[in-house]
C-alpha cells in the first residue's frame, strides 16, 4: 500500500568490494550517508516519512527522516543546519567581551548558563578567577536558569504528548524567574548576565527576597505538576519503555546531562569538576536506571527540586566583596588553549578557546550538549512506534540554536 | 394517514430502486458502496412502514452501520487504481441479462396473479401497538427459537475467532 508512491526504487544497490549490504545497520548508514533518491534499499512495506523542518513538535527547525516499517521506525536520520548562523566563525572576529552576547543565542532557552561557561572559560585562559561574591551570584542565577529551562522542557514535552495544561502552569513559574532576570540585568531571555571576570551589575535591592519567595512557592508548584503527570496512567503509558537508551550506549555516544543520568550513569560536572560556587552547597544528583522517557522526566523533575535547594542555600549567605576581578579593560590572554565545560541544563556545555595572544580569539569551539545528545536519537527511536517519535524528540530536550549554532 | 403511508412507501421504493440501479452502474467503487448504503436504508424504511421497528433498527445498526462499514474499509484499503481500470462488463452479460429478464417476468406474473383491489396495499397500521415489535421478537427468539439462536451465536463466535487468528501477523 503506497509503496509505489514514495519514490523507492526496488532494485538492489550494487555491492561494492564484494560485501553484501544487507544488514540493518548498513542500511541506516546508507540513508544517512547519501541521497535517498538513488541508493535507498527499502523493503516491500517500508516507506520514508519526512518530519519536515516545520513541525509543531520538533522544537525548532529540525528535519527528521524516518524509515518506517508499517508502524515501527526502522531507522532515522536527523538533518540539521537550518539554524546555523556561523557563531563560531564570528567569534574569530570579535574581541572576547564582544563575543559574550553571542553565546546567549545558542541555547536561547538557558542563556545564563551559556554565559557562565564562556566567561569561566575565558577566565581560565586569563588565569584569573571571579571573586567569591560574583561566583555565588552566578550560581544562583544559573540554578534559576536551570529551573526555567526544565520548566520550558516540561511544558512543551507534556504538550506534545497531549497534556494541554501543564505548559501554562510551567510558563507561569518561568515568568517569575524571568522577572528576576529582568530586574537584575534588564533582559529576560538573552541575558548577557555575566562578564568576563565577574559581574557587571550588583544584585538589586530585593534580589534575595525575590529568590527566596520564588523558591518557597516553587516546591508546592512542582508538587502540582507531579500530581498531574507522575502517577497518571496515561502519562506513564506514553513514557515508560519509550526511547530506551542504556548506559553503555549513552557513554559511547557521548551523551551527557539528564539523559545520561537517567540511563544509570552518575555523572554531573557540578560534583565531578566543581565550578562557580557549587562545591559549597549540598545537593543530590538524581539518577535512574532504565533510561526511558519516564526516567528522564523523573530526573529532570528532581533536578528542579535540587536546583531550588541550591538556590536556597546560596541565597542565605551571599558573601560581600567586589563583583569584578582585577583584569584590564582590554583583554589579551596569553597564547594558549583551554577547554572548560559546565553542567548546562541540557548536558555538558564545553568551550574550547584557542588564543593567539591578540584581543580576538583564534578559535572558539563550542561543545553543544543538544547536538551530541541528538545523535542518540537514532538509537532511541529504532523499533518504536511513530507516535512515540514525538515523545522521544521531546525527551532529549534539544534546542536547535545550540545544535546548529 | 393512509396517503402519508402511501407517499412514504413510494419515496422509499423509488429510492431503493434508484440506488440499486446507480450502485451497479457506477464506475467508482466507493460511489457504488455509498449507493448500496442508501439502498439498505431505503429497505429499512420500508420495514418501518410495516410496523416492524425492531427489524428496521437492526437493519440500520447491523447492516448499514456494521457490514457496510466493513465493506467500505476494505474498499478503501485495496489498491483501487487497478480495479478502476478493470473491465466492468464481462462476456457473460448475455446470459446474465436473459436470466434477469426471466426473473423479472416471474415477479410480474406473481404480482398480476394476486391482483385484486387493495391486495398490494400496505396493511393498515394496528390501532393500538399490541406487544411492541421488539418484545415480540425477543419473546419468540428466546422461547421458540432458542436453539437456532444459540447456534447462530456460536457460529458468529467462530467467525470472530477465525478473523482474529487470520489477521494476526505472523511475526516471530
Amino acid at each position, binding site marked *: 500500500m503506497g509503496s509505489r508512491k514514495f519514490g523507492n526504487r526496488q532494485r538492489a544497490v550494487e555491492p561494492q568490494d564484494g560485501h553484501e549490504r544487507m544488514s540493518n545497520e548498513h542500511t541506516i548508514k546508507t540513508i544517512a550517508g547519501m541521497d535517498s533518491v538513488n541508493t535507498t534499499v527499502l523493503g516491500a512495506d517500508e516507506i520514508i516519512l519526512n518530519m519536515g523542518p516545520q513541525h509543531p513538535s520538533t522544537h525548532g527547525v529540525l528535519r527528521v527522516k524516518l524509515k518506517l516499517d508499517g508502524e515501527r521506525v526502522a531507522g532515522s536520520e536527523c538533518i540539521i543546519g537550518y539554524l546555523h548562523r556561523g557563531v563560531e566563525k564570528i567569534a574569530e572576529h570579535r574581541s572576547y567581551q564582544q563575543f559574550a552576547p553571542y553565546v546567549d543565542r545558542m541555547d536561547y532557552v538557558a542563556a545564563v548558563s551559556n554565559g557562565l561557561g564562556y566567561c569561566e572559560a575565558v577566565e581560565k585562559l586569563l588565569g584569573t578567577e571571579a571573586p567569591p561574591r560574583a561566583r555565588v551570584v552566578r550560581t544562583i542565577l544559573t540554578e534559576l536558569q536551570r529551573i526555567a529551562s526544565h520548566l520550558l522542557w516540561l511544558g512543551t514535552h507534556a504538550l506534545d504528548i497531549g497534556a494541554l495544561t501543564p505548559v501554562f502552569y510551567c510558563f507561569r513559574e518561568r515568568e517569575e524567574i524571568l522577572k528576576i532576570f529582568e530586574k537584575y540585568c534588564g533582559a529576560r531571555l538573552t541575558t548577557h548576565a555575566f562578564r568576563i571576570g565577574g559581574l557587571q551589575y550588583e544584585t538589586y535591592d530585593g534580589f534575595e527576597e525575590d529568590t527566596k519567595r520564588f523558591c518557597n512557592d516553587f516546591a508546592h508548584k512542582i508538587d502540582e505538576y507531579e500530581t498531574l503527570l507522575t502517577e497518571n496512567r*496515561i502519562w*506513564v*503509558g506514553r513514557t515508560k519503555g519509550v526511547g530506551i537508551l542504556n548506559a553503555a550506549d549513552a557513554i559511547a555516544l557521548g551523551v551527557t546531562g539528564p539523559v545520561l543520568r537517567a540511563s544509570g550513569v552518575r555523572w554531573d560536572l557540578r560534583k565531578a569538576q566543581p565550578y562557580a560556587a557549587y562545591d559549597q552547597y549540598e545537593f543530590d544528583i538524581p539518577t535512574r536506571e532504565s533510561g526511558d522517557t519516564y526516567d528522564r522526566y523523573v530526573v529532570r523533575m528532581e533536578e528542579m527540586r535540587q536546583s531550588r535547594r541550591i538556590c536556597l542555600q546560596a541565597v542565605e549567605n551571599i558573601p560581600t566583596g567586589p563583583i569584578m576581578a582585577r583584569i584590564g579593560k582590554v583583554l589579551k590572554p596569553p597564547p594558549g588553549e583551554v577547554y572548560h565545560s559546565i553542567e548546562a541544563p541540557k548536558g555538558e556545555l564545553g568551550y574550547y578557546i584557542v588564543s593567539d595572544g591578540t584581543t580576538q580569539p583564534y578559535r572558539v569551539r563550542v561543545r553543544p550538549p543538544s547536538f551530541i545528545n541528538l545523535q542518540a536519537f537514532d538509537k532511541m527511536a529504532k523499533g518504536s512506534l511513530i*507516535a512515540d517519535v514525538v515523545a522521544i524528540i521531546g525527551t532529549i530536550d534539544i534546542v536547535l540554536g545550540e545544535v546548529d549554532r | 394517514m393512509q396517503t402519508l403511508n402511501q407517499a412514504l412507501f413510494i419515496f422509499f421504493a423509488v429510492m431503493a430502486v434508484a440506488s440499486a440501479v446507480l450502485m451497479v452502474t457506477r464506475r467508482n467503487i*466507493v460511489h457504488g458502496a455509498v449507493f448500496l448504503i442508501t439502498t439498505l436504508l431505503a429497505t429499512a424504511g420500508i420495514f418501518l412502514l410495516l410496523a416492524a421497528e425492531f427489524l428496521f433498527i437492526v437493519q440500520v445498526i447491523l447492516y448499514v452501520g456494521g457490514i457496510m462499514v466493513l465493506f467500505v474499509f476494505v474498499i478503501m484499503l485495496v489498491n483501487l487504481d487497478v480495479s478502476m481500470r478493470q473491465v466492468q462488463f464481462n462476456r457473460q452479460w448475455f446470459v446474465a441479462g436473459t436470466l434477469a429478464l426471466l426473473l423479472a417476468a416471474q415477479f410480474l406474473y406473481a404480482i398480476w396473479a394476486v391482483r385484486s383491489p387493495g391486495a398490494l396495499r400496505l396493511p393498515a397500521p394496528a390501532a393500538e401497538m399490541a406487544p411492541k415489535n421488539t418484545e415480540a421478537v425477543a419473546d419468540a427468539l428466546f422461547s421458540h427459537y432458542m436453539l437456532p439462536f444459540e447456534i447462530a451465536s456460536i457460529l458468529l463466535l467462530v467467525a470472530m475467532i477465525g478473523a482474529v487468528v487470520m489477521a494476526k501477523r505472523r511475526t516471530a
Partner: protein
Amino acid sequence: MGHLIPPSIMPFVLPVLYAVVIVAVLPLLAGYIVLMERKVMADMQARLGPMRVGPHGLLQPIADAVKLLLKEDIIPDKADRLMFWFAPLVSVTMALLAYSALAIGPAFQIADLNIGLLFILAVSSLGIYGIVLGGWASNSHYSLLGALRSAAQLVSYETAAGLGLISVLLLAGSLSMKDIVQAQSDQGVWFGFSVPFGFFIYLVGSIAETNRAPFDLPEAESELVAGYMTEYSGFRWSLYFLAEYANMVIVAGIATTLFLGGWLRPGARYHEHIPGTGIEWLDALPALLALGVALYSLSLAPKQPVKIQKVVMLLVALLCLGMAGVLAGALIAPPAVMQGIHGAFWFMAKVFAYIYAFLWIRFTFPRYRFDQLMRLGWRFLIPLALVNVIGVGVAIVLRQQFAWGPIVSLIPTTLGTLAVAMLLAKDDAPTAAASLADGE
C-alpha cells in the same frame, strides 16, 4: 386552536415545531459550547480566554461563524468531488437526526419511539461514514489512515458504551426514553448511582466515541498522521465541527436520560418549602439561579471598556431576567407546564454538567497512543462491561425472587464489577513493547 388546524395535520404540528427549534438552536448551542470549552480551558490554564469579541467573549461564536461562512472553499485537486461534498453532510445529518428521539424534558420530544434509545445509537453509528468518506475524499494517504483509525476507535468504543447502556436497560425495562426516566422515578434512584460502573463505562466510551481527549489521537495536531478534517476548510469544516459538538450533546443527553435521571429534579424527595409559600426550595432554585446570573451580568455591564460590550452585557442580563421570569412563572402554572419547563431546565443543566466533565477530562490528561487506546477498549472496557451486564442480571434475580430493594440489590453487582476492574487494571500494565496487531 383545534379548529384552525385540520385534524390530519394535527399530530405533526408539534413535532415539526420542535424539529425546527432544534435545527435552529443547535448550531448556536454548539457554538456556545465551543465558547464554554475555551473559557473553561482558559480557567484551568490560569488565563482568561476570549475577552474581546463581545463582553467576556460572548459574541465570539458569532464572529467565528461569520468568518467560516466567508472563507474560500478549497477542494483538493484530485479529490473525489461528490464524496468531498457528501461526507460532512452525512456527519451533520446523522448528528441532527439523533435529536428526534431525545427527550429534553417530559414535554419536548419530537418522536416518542418505543425503540428510542436504539434509534439514537443507530444514527450515531452512521456518523462514522462522515469520517471515513471525508478521509477518503481528501485524496491524502494520511487523511485516509487517520479517518480509518478514527472509525476503528469509534466502533470499538461504541460496543463498550452500548454494553454499558444495556446494563441499565435491564433495570429500566424499555427502550423508550420517556419510560427509562419514568423507571428511575419509580425506583427512586438514578441509575448512575445504583449502577456506577455502567455509568463509568458509558462515560469513557462516550469520550472515545466523540473523538475527545484523551482519545483524540486521530485528530491531534502534534501527531504525524493528519486527521480526516485536514483538507476541509471554511463552511465544510464547520459542518464537521458542528457534528462533533452535536454528537457531544447527544451522548450527554443519553447519559443524562439513562444515568442521571433525565428531567427529574435532583433531590426529588426533598420537600422543604420556602416558609410562607407552597413552593419548594429546590423548585425555586432554577429561577433564583437565572436571577443571580442576571444580576451578575448587570453588575458587570458598567465595567466593560467598550460601549457595544456594555450593550451586549445588558442584553444578556435582560435575557437571563426573562428566563428567570419564565422559570418563576412556571411555578404558578398548571403542573404539566411546570413539569415541562423545569424538566427541560434540569435536563439541560445535567447535560452541561456532563459536558463540563468532558472538558475537564480533556484538559487534565495527556493523549493515549492508538494501540494503547484500542487495548483499553477491547481488553479492559468490554470485559468489564460484560461482567457488569451479568452482574445486573444477578441483581434483577435478587429483586424478583428475593424481593431485595432497588438500591440494595445492586450492591453485589457493584462490588463484583469493582473486583474484576481491579484485576483487569493490574493486568493491563501499559508497555510500549505491546505488540501492535494491525492489519493496515
